[in-house]
């Protein structure tokens, strides 16, 4: 393995990451150079170290409190490092376009898939390293105070290994999503569904396998596993640190080496996967002679014109065929399932039934918000096609409403009903919860479209933004408030009786109708304005 090539590729990938998020990138700026993350790491560590050292006075009574706290919590820091990169990776790295996340830009150069994977993983780990510096700064100051200096160095080392392990796992998932395949045949459609389902299962399994809260909660603490935990690689860092604290440096060293071996194994698997998709297989096209298909009967029945139905069909195809859209479909499900698994009814920890079902409404609403906010930006420069076509902005608006609400409602209703069964709701409250979920999805769907019509981003970037960053933050933040407002009021109406129930129902209805109307108006006028002139 040529480490010089690894370093150069990693540096290029980090530079691309940094610059892609900026609207006016000056490549000469110090903030556009890869060392900026290292500088942030050092600055964060030193500032927080100094602040903690100054703010926390040395005293024996404090040592009595801080010492046990550090020795209990810090052995799990490497595991949290893996989980952090994995969660952030699934949320952000998997949405990178294949053009940038793929290996086409380097596969013709004299580098091996293994070198590319190590470079790409290092770049991911380096990008998220400030999160570690944020923790290690104060922790190092406190550890030195209580005489745990050597221990904190080992914690830092194993946490860096954890960051890399998380990045290797992200690389594995990313490689698996990079294979080409846009066949529109029946077999192709089925394979896309299977692939989406497989990706959801893979991401969910990884999220749970490396989620310390879930793991420890399900096994009832590390002690409950006893010697069995020594055979689980996810706990090897924790064991190494615990053994170090217990004074068994020899066995601690064995676990450190084992953890490094596990990281190497993950790298090897990630490299094998990348080698498999090192070159994206060419897309296969086949054309059959047949008459032009008419508009989709369901879409026509909904009152959409032939042109509007064509736009909706195109959007559905894009949603299921474009690799960068796949995580958008998968992420809400994974988050929903993780929350559901962590809060599923169990003795002594079950949530009141309608509150649990509200997670399903949240998943549907989140999907509606994601689809809506990205619905215009995902057209990229191909938006010109719609400008050139004989359709009005109002028509495109209607088509986008259908493209957002159709899949969101299709997801919300069955998820709500399934969650209702799990949480033991009778059919009436189950139906009411499904309706509340749908109301939330409709309201935030229109709300997201209002943002998409006004603040979409059409730039080609490594990580597509679809919406300008500030607008994405505002849309997500306000959309979540609206969604939670509707869901909480709706659940309140079902969970309580009398005046509280009536109040909840009124607030739920008011929020749903009010924000749907405001969102509808803002989105409609936004599309009118958008289609007056090409925005790029």
């Amino acid at each position, binding site marked *: 393995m040529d480490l*010089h*090539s690894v370093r*150069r*590729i990693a540096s*290029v990938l980090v*530079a*691309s990451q940094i*610059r*892609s998020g900026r609207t006016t*990138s000056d*490549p*000469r700026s110090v903030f556009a150079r890869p060392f900026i993350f290292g500088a942030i790491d050092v600055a964060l560590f030193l500032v927080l170290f100094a602040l903690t050292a100054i703010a926390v006075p040395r005293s024996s009574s404090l040592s009595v409190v801080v010492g046990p706290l550090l020795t209990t919590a810090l052995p799990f820091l490497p595991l949290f490092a893996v989980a952090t990169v994995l969660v952030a990776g699934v949320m952000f790295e998997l949405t990178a376009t294949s*053009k940038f996340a793929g290996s*086409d*830009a*380097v*596969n*013709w*150069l*004299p*580098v*091996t898939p293994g070198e590319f994977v190590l470079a790409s993983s290092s770049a991911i780990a380096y990008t998220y390293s400030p999160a570690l510096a944020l923790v290690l700064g104060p922790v190092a100051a406190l550890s030195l105070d209580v005489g745990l200096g050597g221990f904190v160095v080992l914690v830092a080392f194993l946490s860096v290994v954890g960051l890399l392990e998380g990045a290797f796992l992200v690389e594995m998932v990313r490689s698996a999503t990079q294979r080409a395949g846009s066949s529109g045949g029946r077999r192709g459609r089925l394979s896309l569904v299977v692939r989406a389902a497989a990706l959801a299962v893979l991401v969910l399994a990884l999220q749970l396998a490396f989620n310390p809260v879930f793991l420890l909660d399900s096994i009832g603490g590390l002690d409950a596993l006893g010697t069995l935990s020594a055979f689980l690689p996810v706990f090897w860092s924790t064991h190494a640190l615990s053994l170090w604290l217990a004074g068994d440096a020899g066995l601690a060293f064995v676990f450190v080496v084992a953890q490094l071996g596990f990281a190497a194994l993950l790298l090897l698997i990630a490299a094998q996967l990348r080698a498999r998709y*090192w*070159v994206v*297989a*060419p897309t*296969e096209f086949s054309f059959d002679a047949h008459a032009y298909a008419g508009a989709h009967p369901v879409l026509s029945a909904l009152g959409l014109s032939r042109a509007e139905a064509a736009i909706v069909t195109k959007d559905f195809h894009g949603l299921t065929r474009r690799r960068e859209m796949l995580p958008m479909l998968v992420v809400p499900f994974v988050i929903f399932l993780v929350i559901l698994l962590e809060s599923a009814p169990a003795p002594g920890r079950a949530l009141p039934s309608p509150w649990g079902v509200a997670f399903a409404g949240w998943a549907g609403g989140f999907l509606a918000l994601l689809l809506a906010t990205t619905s215009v930006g995902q057209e990229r420069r191909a938006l010109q096609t719609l400008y050139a076509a004989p359709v009005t902005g109002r028509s495109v608006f209607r088509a986008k409403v259908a493209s957002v609400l159709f899949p969101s409602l299709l997801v919300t209703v069955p998820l709500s009903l399934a969650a209702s069964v799990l949480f033991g709701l009778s059919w009436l409250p189950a139906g009411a919860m499904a309706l509340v979920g749908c109301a939330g999805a409709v309201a935030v769907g229109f709300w997201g479209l209002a943002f998409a019509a006004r603040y979409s981003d059409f*730039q*080609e*970037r*490594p990580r597509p933004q679809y919406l300008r960053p500030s607008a994405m933050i505002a849309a997500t933040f306000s959309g979540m408030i609206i969604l939670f407002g509707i869901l909480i009021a709706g659940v309140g109406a079902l969970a309580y009786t009398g005046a509280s129930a009536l109040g909840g129902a009124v607030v739920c209805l008011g929020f749903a109708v009010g924000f749907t109307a405001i969102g509808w108006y803002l989105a409609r006028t936004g599309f009118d304005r958008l289609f007056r002139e090409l925005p790029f």
Partner: protein
Amino acid sequence: MTKSFGPVRAVSDVSFSVPSGQIVGLLGPNGAGKSTTMKAILGLVRPDSGVIRVLGQDVTASPVAVKRQIGYVPESTSLYEFLTGAEYLDFVADLYGLDAPTRTARISQFLEGLELAGHENSLISGYSQGMKQKVALIAGLVHHPRLLVLDEPLNGLDPRSARVMKEVLRSLARNEGVGVLFSTHVLEIAQAICDQVVILRQGTVVASGTVDALRSRAGLAGSDLEDVFLSLTGTGDLSDVVSALSK
């Protein structure tokens, strides 16, 4: 070499050589297997059967060593758009193992020659299609390759840069002994610079040789390469198509 993708046989029993110091044109209709062949030469596509040797080395056995000897320009440029032109070229040259002074000198030479000087410190994302193509061309040439594999290399270039590149290719072949495999749909270019031509159709070689030899084979002495190509690929009689499309 034979290569299938699922049920589709992209390339079937294709065999030809690119002699040192010669420019070989790889021609064929869309979907004939040109890009697959070129990718296989680079080791990017693994043949189902057959052996590809580049300068005596088996591509499948040692792809990285082979890639060091090849300069490649893909059909569609895939560049790191958030690097500047200079940063990207420095990165590529470094991966090929060029030392810093050599790569600075080579890159400056090419930037001047292709009129990119002055733009090298701007992000590639802001470049026009032609400028991106020039960057891809420089990336393929910067490390003194012994074999050039160029997939539609002159796409999007302005006339001056296209002329410069044609002259550079000729010079590299004649004076440096570089072998050049060159695909294009612009048959005038192929006729002007290629020593030999290989014509692919539906994944198989339908004809190969010098342009004169192909003329004789097609029985079209004195015709240009376009007529020869259409005749040999069986797409010569276009009157029905033209008539249908004109209605």
